[in-house]
Every structure is written in C-alpha cells, then in structure tokens.
C-alpha cells in the first residue's frame, strides 16, 4: 500500500515537473524575440515629412515613426528605467557639468552606407543650432538641455557637448526620443538638403528605413540593410497608419486592423474588457495639462484673484471632465505620478468656494471691477470639456467666463504668442525629462516666460536654485521646492498629467512600460 502511494506521488511529481517545464519553455518561447512578420501601428496624424529641420513638430505620433528610422544615442528601458547605450556607448560629464564627452559606437552605418561618426554629429548639431541663422535653435535647445553652445569633435568617434551653464541632466535628456537626436547622413545631407524631395527621403541609422510614404494614409518601413545590430531587427515590415479620430483607432485595434496604438485614459476600461488586448501604462515625461494666467494684466497680476480661481476649482473633479474617467486625485506638480522628478508633497490652494468668493469680493470691492475673462484652449474635445467644467465651477462663485477653442493646427497657440489672452490652457508636449528643461520656463529670463509674462522674484530664485544644484538628491530637493513656490504663488493651475497608455493585441511581443512621450514600435516583434 505504502509503496503504491509512494509510486503515485512519484508519478504525480514527475507529471507536475514535466508540466511546469513545458509551461516555462512555452513562456520562454513567447518571450524570445521572433524574426519576421508585420506590425501595424495606428497613429493620429501624418508626419508631414522626415527632415527635422524643415518639419518643426514635437508631436509624439511623429516620434514613433522617426525614431525607427533614425534611432539615437541612448534609450531608457521602460521596465527597469535603465539608460541603455545605442548609438553612443557612454557619456561622461566634466567636473562642472558644463561639458559632456560622448563616446560613439563604432561600426554604425546609415541606411545609405555612410558612417555615423563624430563628423555626422557635428554636422547635425551645427545645422540645428546655426541653420537659417540660428532662429530655430531655441526649439532644439529646449529638448537637449538649455544653453547648448555646440558639439565639438574630439576624435572620429568621440564628441563633446558644450553648455554655457552646468547641465547635470544631459544623459537623461539624451535618452529621450525627440527630433534633436535624430542624425541624418552628412554626405547625403550636403548633397540633397536643397532639393524639395529631401524632406520625403530620410536616411537614418535606425533599424528600419522608409519603403513608402503615402501622404495622409500611411508610412511603411522595411529593414535597414546596414543596421549595426541585425539581431535587433525583428519585423519584416513596420507600418504606421494615419487614423485621426481616436475612437477609430480604438476600433481598428479591436478589429485587428492595427496591432498597437497609443490611447488616452478614457478608452482604457473598454479596451481592458477585450481579452485579445493588453494595456500598459507609464509616465509621460512632459509638463501635462495646466492653465496659465496672463500675469501682465489685471486681475491676474493680483495673487488674490489667481488664488481665488484655484480655490474655486475642485481639481480632482476636473480630471473627470478631461477624459470621463476620474483620477483619485489631481496632479500637484509639473511631473506627475511615476515621473522620476515627481513631488507628491506639494500643496496647492485647496478647493474652498467660500474662500474663493471672499477673495473675489475683496478684490471687486477694492477695484470696483467685476472679474470676467475668456479662456483660450486647445481645439480638442478633452480641453473643451475641461474648460467647460472649470467655467461652471467659477460661475458658482460669481465669476463670469467664456471659452474659445483655437484653430486646428499650430495656430491655436497664437493668442499665447501675441499676448492677447486672459487665461490659456496648455498641454506642454516638450520633454520634461529633467527639471532644467521646460519646468523652468517660468523664470523671468527664460525665453518662454514672455508667454505668460511672469516676473516673480520668488519663482526666479527657486528656478536659479534648481539650475545651480548638482547631485540627484540636491537637485530633487530644489526642484520640489520650486514646485511648491509655483503653487504658493498660484502661478498656474496644474490639474492633470496624462500618462502614456499603450494598447496592443496579444500577439505583439516585447512591449515595455512606456517611459516618456512615445513607445518603441521598432523594438517589438510579433508572435502570431
């Protein structure tokens, strides 16, 4: 009897072991990158071309496509947050952080066979900073770190990035996908940049190269035969379909016409119900959704009015208006949950309509002028609903406001640039991977500060502390202190910080948690 039992246990144990081994091998097979197949990504808009000097767009849907063609020096692993070397092997700062020496990987070639070396980097950055008399340099600097003076060649595969002030966050910024880092082949550039078709025929050093671009319909990429890491080119074909309305992209994913999409918070519950679809989320490294005041004109130059407007708002409820899915609490800084620079302890003027009303009454009694204003906002449904909800909350404390959506396209920012606005909603799309980037825009001497006309000595001092701090802990402390000053001075109203959500069909493999403003479609493979 005992022997029979022992034998049964042995058989059962062997069966379990065999089952576990099978399961493990199955899981490993699924995780092992598979070569071949096609991947379709649905994005919201066309790329308008591939020359980053001609197309001054920071749009994230463009980044998905162009980073597959160009690649960059470093990448961040979304799961581990580790900075991985790609075209560069390492970056070392000087003692004063005013210079970073970058060692480039040898053997990296562009799709036309040219070498990606120090000369290519110098040519690229010289073009960005001095081309068309340098008038676009500011746009690139705000992505690469402020006060970049230039890039100098040390030897064939070493370059120095030179900054006018200390830039301790350079490597983090260099790991973010944006148009500044996408280098094109220098000889090809010299020979073709004057030609109109140059914008349509990119030559990069990324894993894929352009096969076909049908204006307004799709971009199709195929493997770059000269790519430096042939083991990392899994897909035969990578297609980006342009499907403007988000609901149509979601339906395309559900129907299997797209394999992977970027999606906003409102669609997550619906997509999670589909057993064939997985959703992963991660922090988006941008300033997020806020509204800014025109500090140069009354009544917004009066802190009582700005505070009253914030007291009147239930910022947590405002997050419900944005996507129809409420967040547990509103964001309280310019980074957002999950961002390495997030400051959870920042305290904003609390939701208190009575306090708001008292401050407004005090101001109106003193000046004799009622508070009425217009809110200019981005022309999309989310921004419109958010502003509508805010205006209703302000209405309840006796403030009369109107709203106006800007025109579609880049013209929506015109009121902000012209200074003809009262309150402007903004979604800061520029990378905010490091506090020295757009987070410091409220310093009175920052080129962007003129947009909101802020001249506040407390804010200036806080920004200067952020910029002069070195070492991660000290920088984080200074950065959070600055965020608290912004809240105390009611400089803006931060209410939501969208995360990056990626939804994909289950046969898509290799998807990492997004970290930044894009996801790496070119690193994925399919297992159908």
């Amino acid at each position, binding site marked *: 009897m005992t022997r029979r039992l022992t034998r049964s246990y042995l058989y059962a144990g062997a069966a379990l072991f065999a089952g576990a081994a099978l399961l493990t091998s199955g899981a490993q097979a699924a995780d092992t990158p598979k070569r071949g197949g096609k991947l379709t990504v649905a994005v919201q808009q066309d790329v308008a071309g591939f020359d980053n000097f001609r197309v001054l767009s920071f749009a994230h849907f463009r980044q998905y496509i162009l980073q597959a063609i160009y690649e960059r020096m470093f990448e961040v692993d979304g799961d581990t947050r580790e900075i991985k070397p790609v075209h560069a092997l390492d970056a070392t700062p000087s003692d004063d952080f005013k210079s970073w020496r970058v060692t480039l990987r040898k053997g990296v070639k562009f799709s036309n066979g040219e070498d990606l070396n120090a000369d290519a980097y110098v040519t690229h950055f010289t073009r960005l900073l001095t081309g068309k008399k340098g008038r676009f340099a500011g746009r690139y600097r705000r992505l690469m770190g402020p006060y970049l003076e230039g890039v100098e060649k040390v030897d064939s595969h070493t370059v120095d990035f030179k900054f006018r002030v200390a830039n301790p966050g350079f490597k983090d910024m260099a790991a973010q996908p944006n148009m500044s880092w996408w280098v094109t082949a220098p000889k090809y550039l010299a020979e073709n940049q004057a030609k109109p078709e140059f914008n349509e025929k990119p030559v990069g050093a990324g894993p894929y190269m352009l096969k076909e671009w049908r204006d307004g319909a799709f971009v199709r990429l195929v493997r770059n035969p000269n790519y430096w890491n042939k083991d990392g080119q899994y897909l035969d074909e990578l297609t980006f379909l342009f499907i403007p*309305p*988000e*609901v149509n992209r*979601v*339906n395309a994913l559900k129907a299997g016409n797209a394999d992977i999409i970027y999606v906003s918070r*409102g*669609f997550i519950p*619906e997509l999670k119900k589909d057993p064939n679809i997985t959703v992963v989320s991660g922090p988006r490294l941008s300033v997020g959704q806020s509204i800014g005041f025109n500090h140069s004109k009354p009544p917004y130059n009066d802190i009582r009015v700005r505070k009253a407007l914030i007291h009147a708002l*239930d910022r947590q*409820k*405002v997050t*419900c*208006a944005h996507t*129809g899915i*409420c967040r547990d609490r509103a964001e309280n800084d310019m980074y957002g949950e999950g961002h390495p620079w997030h400051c959870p302890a920042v305290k904003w003027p609390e939701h208190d309509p009575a306090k708001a009303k008292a401050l407004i009454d005090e101001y109106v009694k003193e000046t004799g002028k009622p508070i009425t204003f217009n809110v200019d906002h981005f*022309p999309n*449904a989310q921004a*419109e*609903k958010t*502003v*509508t*909800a805010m*205006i*209703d*909350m302000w*209405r309840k404390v006796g403030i009369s406001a*109107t*709203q*106006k*959506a800007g*025109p*579609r396209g880049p013209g929506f920012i015109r009121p902000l640039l012209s200074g003809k606005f009262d309150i402007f909603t903004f979604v800061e799309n520029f990378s905010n991977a490091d506090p020295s980037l757009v987070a410091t825009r409220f310093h009175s001497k920052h080129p962007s500060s003129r947009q909101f006309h802020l001249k506040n000595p407390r804010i200036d001092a806080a920004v200067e502390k952020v910029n002069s701090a070195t070492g991660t802990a000290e920088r984080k402390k200074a950065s959070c202190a600055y965020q608290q000053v912004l809240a105390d001075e009611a400089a803006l109203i931060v209410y939501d910080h969208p995360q990056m959500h990626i939804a994909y069909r289950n046969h898509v493999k290799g998807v990492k948690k997004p970290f930044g403003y894009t996801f790496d479609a070119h690193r994925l493979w399919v297992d159908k």
Partner: protein
Amino acid sequence: MVALVRNLLRLPPAADAGSQQDMVRPWWARVGILFWLCVGWLLLIGLSAIFADVLPIQDPLTTNLDGQFLMPFADGYVLGTDGVGRDMLSRIVHGARISMLLAFTAPFLSLLAGLALGMSAGYFRGRVDAAVGIFTDSILAFPNIVGVMVVLFFLGATLPVMILALAFFGIPAEVRVARANTILFAEREFVLAARAQGASHLRIMVRELLPNVIVPMLSLVLFGMSIVIIIEGGLAFLGVGFPPPTPSWGKMIADGFEEIARAPQVTFVPAGVMFLTILSLNMIGDRLRALTDVKASAV
C-alpha cells in the same frame, strides 16, 4: 426616405394628392396623418425652444461631474447626461433655439433676396438677367458649407454671422426658381393685360407675378430650413460652429462622437432629434409642393 415612410403608413403617393378623389376632400384631410404628425413635432420643438427658460428643466450649462454619461432616465435625467454631466434634455431644448432661429431666418432672407433678384432677372431679361446669372454662378462656384466655413473663420462664429452666411449661400437656388417661374408667368394673358393698362414694372411684379411665383418658392424654403439645420450640424462637427458651451444640436452630436463607443446615447439622442426635425420639414415641404403644383396648373 419619404417614399419609404409613405409606403409604411400606406399613404397615397404625392403625385396623387391632386387626383379627382382627393379634390373633394378638404386640404387638411388630403395632406395625410403623417403631415400632421410632422407639424406636431415641429410645434413641440418650436414651443420648447420659445419657452425653454420657463420649462421645468435644468440649466443647460450646469455640469455634474459625478454623473457623466448617464443613460436616459437615470438619476432623473430624462435623456441622460453628456461628458461633463450636463442635462441632455435641457441642452436639446436650448439647442433647438439655435436650430429653429437659423431655420426661420436664413432661408427667409434667402427667399427675399432670391425673389428680388430672380424676378428682376426673369422679368427684365437681357443685361439684368446676365448680371444676376454671373452673380449666382459665382456663389455656386463655392460649395456652400466651405463658403460658410470661410466666413465664420474670418468673422467669428456668432449667430448673426451664421444667419447671414447661410442666407447668402442659399440665394442661388431661390433666384433660379424665382427666375424660372417669372419667365413662365411674364408672358401670360393677365400680365399682358396689366401691361396694356399701363401698370408700372414694379406693380406688375408685385401684384401680378409675385403671388404666382412665391407659392412654389415657399415649399423650397422648407427644404432650405432643413438644409441650414444640417449645415449647422456639419459646421459644428468640423469644429467651426458656435463656441462652447453654447448648446446646439450639431455641437452635441460632435461632442458625443468621441465617446460613441462608451456612451452612444450622447450622439444618438441629438442626432435623432435632428433627424426627426429634418424629416418633418422635408415631409411638410413635399406635401405642400404637391398641393401647390395643383394650384399652379389651375392658374
């Protein structure tokens, strides 16, 4: 669609409205029950729009962020709520003001301009006719929705601007009908008799031609009314309609479209109201045209 509804309700076809059997029945019986249902719907919409401020409904601008996308009849909201928790019924009633105001102004302004120009062209012919022809052809060169979009973009999307823009782009159709009918009647005996008696051009046009020309044009106005409602909806959908938070049917449909998978009622409720209104206007116009055809042939 009209023919389909007619078949479903087993109504006689419009061409039969003037048959011998019909002629003995009073006009209100000849138009059929569907006509009166349509009139009833338009009256309901029109009266709701007029008395929106005194009706026991919520403020159309008040948001309720605890009750977004509620289904009809949930939490006391008869038609549910939209993406920021506003009462759909209230917004539809207040939105009817925009639609009805546009419907009852722009086509009539087009009618007035169309009558003046079309009758002048048809009566005087020659250079006047050529000039009016160039004018109408020039307007027709722009698709009306594109033309209205351009006007609204530059002058701002306000109600007076939209009314005038829609009226302007509605003129060519009215001119053509007025001109064609004027030419038809200008050589008839009663006009020749008036002319022989020394009547002025103005008198002939107003006293003799206008009563005959205006009847078929009135049914055209009803079609114009439905067209301006559709154009308002189309403009709102393209993002150049009235600014938020002004409730308008087109804007409500556009707002709901983004959420159509999650809350289809936000789009389909205003779309249904707009559909019924346009169907009603078309049905009434169709019936009236059938009746006026009889009158025209009897002149």
